């Protein structure tokens, strides 16, 4: 999951970026509105966290701009203003949620997860796909009610699939959304991790939750029970 962190206050931006990375997110951290608008419209972003008072271009303008560019990913606004007039303006501009400064980092992380979950079309954070159970908040995964141990990258990959069900996801797209720096498109890291994930999810080979579409990519479409 690739998050755009748009905040001009350096300490806050760095702290939040570190925390989000620790949560397994890929983060693009930007400190001004003009560069932020460029990232927001040109990068494969899954969610943007936008501070309202930015130099160069205001946060509201950045949000309006990315919505005009038909970007549909969720946007979380950060601001020190807590009047309803400001909230209404922020959400009218196209943002999806709103967090008033000062806030606890846990609150921010929880909102980010909730927004991603909602954008993936899930009402609750406890998801079930056949024998597979995933809790997006606690990040616990179980198979046939047995806890399943996944590595950090395996979980990231599974989470991305779960939040984009029934969509064909190319290797390049997965690379962009799951790796910090532009990975070598020829690299087979994704294939290797995917192979391990498939083995863990479907040890007997009779379920096949993740299908390969030759020349196009992969699709997570498990039969739900």
């Amino acid at each position, binding site marked *: 999951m690739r998050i755009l962190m748009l905040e001009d206050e350096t300490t806050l931006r760095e702290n939040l970026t570190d925390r989000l990375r620790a949560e397994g997110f890929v983060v693009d951290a930007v400190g001004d509105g003009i560069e932020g608008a460029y990232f927001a419209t040109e990068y494969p972003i899954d969610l943007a966290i936008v501070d309202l008072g930015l130099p160069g271009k205001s946060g509201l303008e950045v949000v309006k701009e990315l919505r005009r560019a038909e970007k549909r990913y969720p946007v979380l606004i950060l601001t020190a203003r807590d*009047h*309803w*007039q400001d*909230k*209404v303006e922020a*959400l*009218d501009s196209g943002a*999806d*949620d*709103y967090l008033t400064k*000062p806030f606890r980092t846990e609150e921010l992380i929880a909102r980010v997860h909730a927004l991603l979950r*909602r954008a993936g079309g899930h*009402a609750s954070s406890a998801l079930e796909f056949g024998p597979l159970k995933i809790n997006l908040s606690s990040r616990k995964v179980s198979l046939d009610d047995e806890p399943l141990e996944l590595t950090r990258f395996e979980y990231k990959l599974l989470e991305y699939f779960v939040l984009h069900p029934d969509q064909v996801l190319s290797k390049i797209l997965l690379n962009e959304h799951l790796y910090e720096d532009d990975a070598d498109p020829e690299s087979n890291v994704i294939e290797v991790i995917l192979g391990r994930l498939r083995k863990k999810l479907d040890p007997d080979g009779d379920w096949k939750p993740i299908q390969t579409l030759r020349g196009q990519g992969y699709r997570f479409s498990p039969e739900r029970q």
Partner: protein
Amino acid sequence: MTKSRKPPSLLFRLSLSAVAVVLLALGLIGLSVERAFRASEESALRERLESAVFAVLAGLEVDATGSVAWAGAPADSLLTRPASGLYAGIYTREDRWLSPSTLGVDMPVEKMTIARGADRFQAADAGQPWFIYRLGLGWETESGEIVDVEVWAAEDGTRLDQAMASFRGDLWRWLGLAALVLVVAQLALLFQPLQILRRIAGEVRDIESGRRDHLSGLYPRELSPLTENLNALLKTERANVEQYHRALGDLAHSLKTPLAVINSQLDAGERIGVAELRETVGQMQARIRSELDRAARSGRRTMLPPLTVAPVVERVVRTLRKLYPDMEFKVSAPASLRANVAERDLLEVLGNLLENAAKYGRNQVHAIFDAHSSSGRRSGLRLRVDDDGPGINAERFAEMLQRGMRGDERAEGQGLGLSIVQGIVESYHGEIRPQVSPLGGLRVEVTLKPS
């Protein structure tokens, strides 16, 4: 680009109408005086002609053959002066006599036209310029015979025309002068109230530049609504500015103490514990909120324009639907509902009440709006927000109105939202009441009086 034209000045409009009224009135007066003058001139002329006829009759002699002789000297010397303008004559069937004044004048009276015992007055008209009075009578001669005689007197109409012309000239000259005097007097009268308006404008300028702080009360009664309202507005604004200054001062002051504590700890080289720092930060946060809350509570609102309620409600609900996608929000607000309430305040009241309802409700929130305590053209607002949550009793609700109190840890900040709403409601001299909702949960009813 079309340039919007400035409306003409009051002085210009008023002068224009003053001149128009004076001209119209004096014109009508002039015309009627002229008519009256002509009528009285004509009746005087007729009397003059009649008396000339009787003067001529006094010296008349007619013999049995009908030949006319005139014995007496004409009573009116005008009859003896040739072309004097007054003429007379006596006709019988056989003879005629003409006054000496007719010498060289082509008289219009040719022959007898009038019967015995009759008389006729003929005014000058377009066809002929003479005023003529004729009297027909039977004259008994010495021999006892009756002879028909016609006596007439005439006056040239041009004399009357000249008199009229000279009168008319005088009349219009004087009326013109009167018009001038009246217009000048009107303008002088108009100038005075305009001068008062200029004085108000001057005082407002002085207020703007800080040379005075309110309008003097020395204005005519009719203008006092204007000046008093302006003064009230100024007073409110000053009070608000003072309030903001005080609130900012209070806020800065309340933050400085915890900051000083942290500074002193840093200076002493102490390690500050996370828990301790968090508590201080929490305190600072609470102070900021309570000071801002207090500032909102005491801000005064005057003469707000009417606000159409439905679109504002729609904006808040649209926002809340994003924040609480699983909650069903229903709104009953008449499209025509308008209230004298600030948009900012309505957004704040609605946002807080609806968000509380969304936090506590299970599936649905309903907001109902109608007009309340309207006086004249200013209208207040009543709003009721229902949820289908667990509800709350009156004592608990009252506690939650106290600042900073929270109704439930599950939905953090409920009490704060309510106390902000209460602050705004107080500034509108309104009321906030908990009730049992038809949906089963809490209904909060808020009334705002027009401001």
